[in-house]
């Protein structure tokens, strides 16, 4: 496939790995956080970490919108799905995520709820048009990459005069999440040297929102594509920056990311959504101005308004260490319940629920490797 295969060339990958090993200073460690779940997935699926020298460590960040959704949000979706006359539409990722007592949207279908998997928000809109007698609720999740498609159908629903289409909005924001892991008390701070920055989020919001992590927080950031060569190149660039004492924003994914991003998509998002004051993130706690809700002008399409949903705060399992894993403070295999009680089939916490969650990715692709636990010690 054009524009994919070339970025997966095994020979180039090996050469890049050699360069990385040569440029990495043996006297120090490099702890690099890949923020996006998609990057975590690529690392795991291609076994890239095994190509890196021992002193370069990848820390898995919280950029998995499925993983950071609190159980209360899933319960809200389940509650709606169980109501007679409701058709709940959802992306495939959410169908097996457990709410309370192991309930999932998939299981609720077995109990009679009308839950439909869709690929595009347009599918949900079509279902609403085909079933005027039902209330069709779209379970909207995702970071800024996935938000504009929701904005499009809300406006389209208005244009078509649909009365039976609603969105249950759980869109969350990436820069806020990055701040969430960095703005913590010193005692809880995770030692990270640099970031593999979000790739597809940046196609929408541009690379400029991430400049402050370099200029204000002092971290090298490389906006990175999702193919294996992209990630290896980004690691190389981060190592160079660190060796040279620089903290800059670099854009490796220039074939689709620009500084200003997709202005049309941004305008659509601003028109339809506004910031919530605060939002609870699984594993990261309550973060201000980190999530979106529909504007009052679109209240008729807001499932929260039309159904008067109250969200329960459902705590995670006591043994769950996702909070630490999501911030990069612990590796999955350092969690006591990893791969014993907590598995993709029986996830206790958010990192195990989605295939790109740090624990799920390691379990599915990498648990055969016995990585020695590394301590959170700053490099000299």
């Amino acid at each position, binding site marked *: *496939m054009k524009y994919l295969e070339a970025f997966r060339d095994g020979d180039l990958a*090996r050469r890049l790995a050699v360069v990385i090993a040569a440029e990495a200073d043996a006297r120090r460690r490099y702890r690099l956080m890949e923020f996006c779940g998609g990057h975590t997935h690529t690392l795991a699926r*291609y*076994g890239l970490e095994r190509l890196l020298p021992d002193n370069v460590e990848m820390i898995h960040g919280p950029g998995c919108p499925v993983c950071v959704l609190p159980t209360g949000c899933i319960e809200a979706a389940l509650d709606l799905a169980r109501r007679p006359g409701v058709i709940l539409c959802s992306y495939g*990722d959410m169908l097996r995520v457990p709410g309370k007592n192991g309930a999932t949207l998939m299981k609720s279908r077995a109990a009679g709820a009308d839950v439909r998997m869709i690929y595009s928000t347009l599918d949900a809109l079509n279902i609403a048009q085909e079933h005027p007698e039902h209330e069709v609720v779209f379970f909207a999740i*995702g970071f800024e990459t996935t938000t504009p498609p929701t904005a499009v159908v809300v406006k389209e629903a208005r244009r078509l005069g649909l009365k039976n289409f609603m969105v249950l909005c759980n869109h969350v924001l990436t820069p806020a999440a990055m701040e969430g892991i960095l703005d913590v008390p010193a005692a809880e701070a995770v030692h990270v040297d640099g970031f593999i920055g979000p790739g597809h989020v940046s196609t929408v919001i541009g690379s400029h929102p991430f400049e402050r992590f370099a200029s204000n927080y002092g971290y090298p950031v490389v906006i990175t594509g999702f193919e294996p060569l992209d990630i290896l190149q980004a690691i190389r660039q981060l190592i160079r920056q660190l060796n040279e004492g620089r903290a800059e924003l670099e854009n490796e994914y220039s074939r689709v990311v620009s500084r200003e991003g997709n202005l049309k998509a941004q305008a659509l998002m601003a028109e339809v959504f506004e910031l919530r004051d605060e939002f609870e993130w699984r594993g990261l706690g309550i973060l201000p101005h980190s999530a979106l809700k529909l504007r009052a002008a679109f209240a008729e399409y807001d499932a929260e308004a039309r159904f008067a949903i109250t969200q329960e705060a459902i705590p995670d399992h006591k043994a769950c260490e996702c909070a630490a894993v999501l911030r990069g403070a612990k590796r999955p295999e350092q969690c006591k319940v990893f791969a014993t009680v907590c598995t993709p089939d029986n996830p206790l916490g958010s990192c195990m629920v989605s295939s*790109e969650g740090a624990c799920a990715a390691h379990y599915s692709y990498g648990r055969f*490797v016995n990585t020695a636990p590394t301590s959170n010690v700053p490099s000299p």
Partner: protein
Amino acid sequence: MKRPKEFFPPLDLVRGRVELSHGSGGRATAQLIEELFVAVFDNDWLRAMNDQAAFEPPPGRLVLTTDSFVVSPLFFPGGDIGSLAVHGTVNDIAMAGARPLYLSASFIIEEGFPLADLRRIVDSMAEAARATGVAIVTGDTKVVERGKGDGVFINTTGVGSVPPEVNLGADRARPGDKIILSGSIGDHGVAILSRREHLQFETELRSDSAALHELVAIMIAAAPDLHCLRDPTRGGLAAVLNEWAHQSGVGMLIRERAIPVRPAVSAACEFLGLDPLYIANEGKLVAVCPPQCANDLVAVMRRHPLGKDAAVIGEVRADEHRFVEMETAFGGKRLVDWLSSDPLPRIC
């Protein structure tokens, strides 16, 4: 005085629909069987219109297998529920190293199902059976009320005979054995997905649904000491390898570069976020053989149309954890995990 011949209108196989009476066991049932199934499957057993079929037991050990087919959509590129029902059971027999002999076919049909579609399915089954050299010798028909069935469900049960020298088993993989795949993976699953509502995409990809018994026969002739054989249907190649690793108490190492995947399957998996290793195949097989047979086996398979892309994809090794590992195209390594359910398309 002779009774005048009664007039019973023939089945309208063009515009007619299946009715509850067709499953009630009375005259309408007999008519459906006679005018459709017997007419199309066309053999002496069925023409006798008995409830059972009798035959001399063939020499050697017998295998018996059964499978039910609930695929949706009923008609897809490269096949339909009918051809699948024949190939699927024939393949289960073949995976025991056995020669398929007889099939039964049971239909559970939803009231209102178009007879034209039923005819199409039955024609397809007959064609698949003829091509395989298998006879459909007995069957059953039931009709359920409208809304209580998904069009039609089919069960086929098959009988075959195993040559005495064959000793295949899921627990027979041994460290050092080679793993051989007969061709590209993911074709069937992706062809089906392409027709699913709300996922529709266009592709020239067709299901690989095919009967594998001839390929198996030449494989056994070339390598009588074959250890394991299976067709990777639901759960894909990953499921079969993990099952074998588990039952044999071994590990496996396969090479991504050696596994044939059609570009269209790759492309569909890319945008849906799926992994071809977990996608169903209906005309492929995977085998484990002692290392010294591997090259000859692959050469022999490649001379058969259903094995032209056959390749050694890895080996069995000692591993107390029974992991199936894959060397990625980069030389990195990843686990090929044993999933408990079908992977779903994802956005993340």
